């Protein structure tokens, strides 16, 4: 448990650095690649995993917290958990129209929390990292499971 805390704290520090700067213009990291390995004396494990932290522009997709396993340690990440609560904006045809419109008109759309945010074209938010890129980039190491 102590070691788990150490991992969490170190990761927390990494994220916190960004969060602390967020108000003053920090670029918003979305996906981090981290590597972990066991302490001496433990069964050998060296693993890399991706962590997804939602950017503020994750409009239209509810991001839910979950955990990624890295050498047996569960680390907080996020995964896509369904569409936005604004019903009209879930319609793919509406999203296509907004994609086209946003090319020449600065529009804001209501986020899942009802706040109006700059519209980001849909493809950017297809959450593929955890299921595909991870395994492709790290063959033979098994995927880190994502669960709640």
């Amino acid at each position: 448990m102590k070691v788990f805390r150490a991992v969490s704290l170190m990761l927390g520090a990494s994220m916190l650095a960004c969060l602390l700067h967020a108000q003053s213009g920090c670029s918003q990291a979305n996906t981090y690649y981290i590597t972990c390995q066991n302490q001496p004396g433990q069964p050998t494990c060296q693993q890399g995993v991706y962590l997804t932290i939602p950017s503020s522009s994750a409009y239209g997709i509810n991001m839910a917290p979950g955990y990624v396993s890295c050498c047996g340690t569960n680390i907080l990440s996020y995964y896509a958990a369904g569409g936005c609560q604004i019903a009209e904006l879930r319609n793919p045809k509406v999203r296509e129209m907004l994609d086209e419109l946003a090319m020449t008109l600065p529009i804001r759309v209501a986020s899942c929390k009802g706040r109006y945010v700059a519209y980001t074209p849909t493809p950017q938010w297809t959450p593929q990292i955890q299921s595909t890129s991870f395994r492709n980039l790290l063959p033979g190491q098994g995927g880190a499971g994502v669960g709640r």
Partner: protein
Amino acid sequence: MRAATVLLAATLALGHWGQCQSVTSAEIPARNLKFEKGDAVPGLSISPVVVIPAQCTSDGVMYLDTLKPTDPRDRTVVAIGDKKSRSFSASGIGDLHDVTFISFFPTSSTVAFLVRATKEASTEERIVTTSEGSSVVPVSKGEYRYYIAKFDSNGNYKGYIVLPPGYAFSRIAILSSGDFLVSGYDGANATARVLRVSSNGDPAGVVALPPPMLEGAPSGLPDSPESLMASARMMSTILFTPYRDSVLLWRIGSKGPILEVSAGGGVREVSIQAPPGAVLADLLPATDRWVGHFRSPGVAADSSSPVETFNGDSYYEINPGDGGLTSRLTQSGEVPGTISCESDGTFLAFETDADHHFFLLSAR
């Protein structure tokens, strides 16, 4: 739980997201805005899609250009103030036909729409072929032009003026003298223009634009789809913001400059000190100050994430004299993420809910 280690290397995995960069704001005093959320405005159902910037008049009324998600041509301007709302629609323009709404600008007494339309009511059938096939559609026999349609503050239509030909007009502003500023793309010369037009439609001057405001002009064939798209994209970034008796002319995604156009048409250019790595996302309508909403490139938006503090946007008050940053605005309370405008020291923002209720948020 298995023990794991201390070796932990975090790197950014995708080039799309940049690195954290600190804005050197140490010398700039911070000023906190504590937002409070009002009750839902009665009778107002707000669209989940709005076109920025929001506008506010000196009497504290907020105006939003909303569009229907399923039909982006269906645009309605909604005015919200003192827990009441009213709507302005191009459908109220009775003496123009086939009206396409383009943009608008409000003052406390007048709301002006920039529209493209024809005076001719009669139509003829023409075959229109698209990628989806051919169809017969009614098309006006008349000439299509750009117009400024005027409404009073209660939404009653008061007539139009016709704008000069040769431009694809994009945005509009009203000077306190009654003259209009209109931005448009001059296709013949492949450049952006801002014209001053008198209240009866006569040309009254041209605002010379500095080079940063002219970047991005299309270089291809004038009438090619690519050129039309590029010119529309460029023009959509040149915006007007009211400030006292003047109108500020600026470009979204830029680091300035800002042009202040006075009631008489005089122009003052002010270079601004944008925070390092940040560009203008909005210049808030304000009655007694300049307020810049800045964003770092690559950061697409603001706070829709579950991590509430993950907000790359920043707000600064700007000295209108020299363009320096005078204070950094932080948010607390019912944090809106995006601030819309300022009126006599009160900052306004808004949000909605799943049932499209409209909530005004305010902070002093």
